[in-house]
């Protein structure tokens, strides 16, 4: 019975840890402004939140085959989540506001031949504004 109490207490602590990180990732997803910032909070919930919840479930279960499968979920998500974040970053940098590609506006005659340096000017201006506001 003492072993069950220890398992229950450790499991509840891990569960609260994971739920704290998941709730903070949701709050951060609402408070950040751009998608590249929101990916940061989403990765927080993907890694530590999932690890906490699944470790709590492992403590509740004890040691059997289900525990191994639960840890396999963590391994799988920890492998695939950086790849998904990288792809989302690639899409945001390709089609988003901070795109480094030349302008696609047909009314701009030299827009397609112009390099990406001129197109990055608004990005640098935005970053400067952000620094001044802080």
């Amino acid at each position, binding site marked *: 019975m003492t072993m069950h109490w220890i398992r229950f207490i450790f499991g509840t602590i891990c569960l609260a840890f994971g739920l704290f990180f998941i709730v903070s990732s949701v709050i951060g997803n609402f408070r950040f402004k751009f998608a590249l910032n929101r990916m940061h909070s989403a990765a927080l919930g993907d890694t530590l939140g999932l690890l906490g919840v699944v470790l709590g479930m492992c403590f509740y279960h004890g040691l059997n085959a289900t525990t191994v499968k*639960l840890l396999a979920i963590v391994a*799988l998500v920890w492998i695939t989540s950086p790849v998904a974040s990288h792809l989302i970053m690639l899409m945001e940098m390709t089609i988003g506001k901070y795109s480094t590609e030349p302008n696609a506006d047909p009314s701009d005659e030299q827009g397609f031949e112009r390099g990406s340096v001129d197109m990055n000017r608004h990005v640098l201006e935005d970053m400067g504004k952000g620094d001044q506001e802080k």
Partner: protein
Amino acid sequence: MDPLTSFAPHVLTVSMLILAACALASLFRTFIGPRVSDRIVGVNMIGTQSICLIACLVLRLREDWLVDIAIVYAMFSFLAVTVLTKMDIGVYRQWRADQKKSHQRHIETRRAYRQAHAQRHHRRDNS
């Protein structure tokens, strides 16, 4: 009194309610996300919270086979994000190539028009 049979189901119910509230908030974020990237980030977060929800449900319902569903859910969540991002990038690249082609055609047409009418305009201006 065994805490794993008396207290743990209530703890699990409360944590599942919190996870469901987080998933609903992420769904709202997905609705109001101004750009496609924000929406995909929200969908990714909903996937992670659903995995946690299923992992809690394993112990709440005492059904061990639900863990396999969680593994498959993780795989499909990753697959959805991959396919959506690659598809959006491909559609954007195709659209941009079409815009470039039509822009080049426009420039060539305008240049040919100017060359064809330059001589006549020149005479009219001089007369």
